[in-house]
C-alpha cells in the first residue's frame, strides 16, 4: 500500500513538473509548482524522512511559492506579452542544454549508484567516472564525504538511539556549526538586499 502511494506521489511530481513548463498562464504554472512541492514532500514523508518533508511544505509551499505568486501578481503580466517574449527565448536553448548537462553530470558524480542491467546507462556512468578521473585527483575523497553524508547508515548516529530530528540537531549544532553560521550570514544578505532595493524606490 505504501509503495503504491510512493509511486503515485512520484508520478504526480513528474506530471506536475511537466505541466509547470507547459502551462501558458504563469499563475497556473505556479499552482503546478506547488503541486510538485507537495508531491515531493509527501514522497519524503512516506519514505520516512518526515522532518525534511514537512520543512519542504513549510518553506517551499508556505513561503517560496507565495513569493513567486506575489511577484507574478505584482508584475501583472499580460498573457500576450508573455507569448511574445517567449518566442525570443529560443535562442537561449544552447545555454539551457549546457546547464542541464552540467547538472546531470554533477548528479551522476555525487550520487553513487550503479545500474548493471541497462547497458546504455552503465556505459554513460563509466564515461563520467573516466571524466572524473581526468579532472579530479585519483582519490575522490570529497565524494566519499558526500556519500557518507547522504547514507545515514554509515554515519556515527547509528550507534545512539536518536530520533531523526534529534540526530539532525546533534549533527547540525556540533559538526555542522560552521556551516550553520555561514548560513546565517547568507540569510542576513538575503534580508538586507530586498530591504535596500525597496527602500531606494520609495524616495
Amino acid at each position, binding site marked *: 500500500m505504501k509503495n503504491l502511494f510512493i509511486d503515485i506521489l512520484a508520478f504526480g511530481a513528474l506530471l506536475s513538473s511537466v505541466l509547470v513548463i507547459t502551462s501558458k498562464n504563469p*499563475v497556473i504554472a505556479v*499552482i503546478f509548482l*506547488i503541486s510538485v512541492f*507537495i508531491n515531493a514532500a509527501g514522497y519524503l514523508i512516506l519514505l520516512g524522512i*518526515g*522532518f525534511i518533508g*514537512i*520543512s519542504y*511544505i*513549510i518553506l517551499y*509551499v*508556505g*513561503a517560496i*511559492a*507565495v513569493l513567486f*505568486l506575489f511577484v507574478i*501578481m505584482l508584475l501583472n503580466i499580460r498573457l500576450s506579452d508573455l507569448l511574445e517574449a517567449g518566442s525570443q527565448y529560443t535562442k537561449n536553448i544552447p545555454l539551457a542544454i549546457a546547464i542541464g548537462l552540467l547538472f546531470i553530470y554533477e548528479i551522476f558524480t555525487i550520487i553513487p549508484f550503479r545500474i548493471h542491467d541497462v547497458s546504455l546507462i552503465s556505459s554513460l556512468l563509466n564515461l563520467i567516472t573516466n571524466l572524473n578521473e581526468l579532472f579530479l585527483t585519483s582519490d575522490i575523497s570529497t565524494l566519499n564525504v558526500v556519500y557518507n553524508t547522504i547514507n545515514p547508515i554509515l554515519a556515527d548516529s547509528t550507534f545512539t538511539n536518536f*530520533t531523526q*530530528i534529534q540526530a539532525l540537531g546533534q549533527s547540525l549544532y556540533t559538526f555542522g556549526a560552521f556551516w550553520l553560521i555561514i548560513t546565517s550570514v547568507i540569510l542576513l544578505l538575503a534580508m538586507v538586499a530586498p530591504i535596500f532595493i525597496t527602500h531606494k524606490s520609495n524616495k
Partner: protein
Amino acid sequence: MINNNLILIILNTLISLIDVLLVLLPVLLSVAFMTIIERKQLAAHQRRVGPNTVGYYGILQPFSDALKLILKETVIPSQSNKILFYLAPVSTLIFSLLGWGIIPFGQGLTLFDFSLGILYTLALSSLGVYGVLFAGWSANSKYAFLGSLRSTAAMISYELILSSAILIVILLAGSFNFTTIIESQEAIWFVVPLLPVFIFYFISILAETSRTPFDLQEAESELVAGFFTEHSSIIFVFFFLAEYSSIVLFSCITAILFFGGYNMPELFVNNTFISLQAVVLGLKTCVFCFMFVWFRATLPRLRYDQLIEFCWLNLLPVAVAFIILVPCILVAFDIAPY
C-alpha cells in the same frame, strides 16, 4: 485463503472509516454549533436575543442555514477562472479539516500519533494561505483581490509569531509529539512559566484565523467581504466551515500546548472507570472558543498598516527575544528536557 485476506482488508478499511467518521462527525457538529454559539454569545454581549426560532432555543439554526446555502444557486462571475474558483474553497476546507487527524482526544485516542505532530499543524496552516490567495485572484474582482492580498500578507506575518511561540513550547517539552507535550505538562501547565509566550501565541492565532481585531480581509467598510466577495452558496459554506473549523482546532491546540490538554489538575481525582479525558479537553476548548467570540464582541478592528507593523515591529522582537531567553534559562540551570 485469498478470500479471508480480502475480508480482512475490507474489515480494516471499514474500521478505519468508522474511526475517521468518529472524529469528523463531532468536528463538523462542533463547527456547526460554534456558529450558533458565536451568534448567541454576540447577542448576549449586545443585550439582544439572537436566533431563537429554529428548533428549541435556536439550536437548529446552523443546520437550516447550511441547508439553505446548499439549495442556493452558485453564481460564478463570467470573468473568473472557473476551476480555481471552485478549487480554492475546497482546498481551504480540506486543509482545515485535515488538521484534526493528529489531535489526541485522550490517552492514545488519536487518528495518528505522529512524531512530528505540531509541525504537521504548522504545515497545514501554511497551506491554508493558498485558498485565500487563489480565491481572491480567481474571482477577478478588485475587492476580492485586494482582500486576499491583505489577508495573505497578514497570515504569513503572524505565522512567524505562531511558529516561534510553538518553538518555545517544544523547547520545554522536548518533543514535537502532541501526546508527549501533554504528558510533560503533568507537573505544571505551560501557561504558568510561559505566560507572555501564551499571550503573543493567542494574538497570533487570532490573526491566523483572521478573527476580529485582525479581520482586515473582510473589513466591510473598505472591502465588501474580502476574498470571498464573489463566492456564494456551497463554496461560501466551504470558507465558512473552514474558518470555524480552524477556530475550534486552534482552540483545541491552545488547550493542548498551554493548558495540559486532556489531563485534569491533580486536585480532581477521577476514581470512576469512565474516562473523562475527552470531556476535559472539550471543556478547555470551549473556554478558548468563548474567548474568540469575546474578543470579537469587545475589540475594535485595527487599521491595516497597524496590523502589519504590530506584527513586525512589536511582536516579532519579543518572540525572538523569548527564543533566546528560554533556552538560556534551560541551559544555565541544566534543566533541558532529555
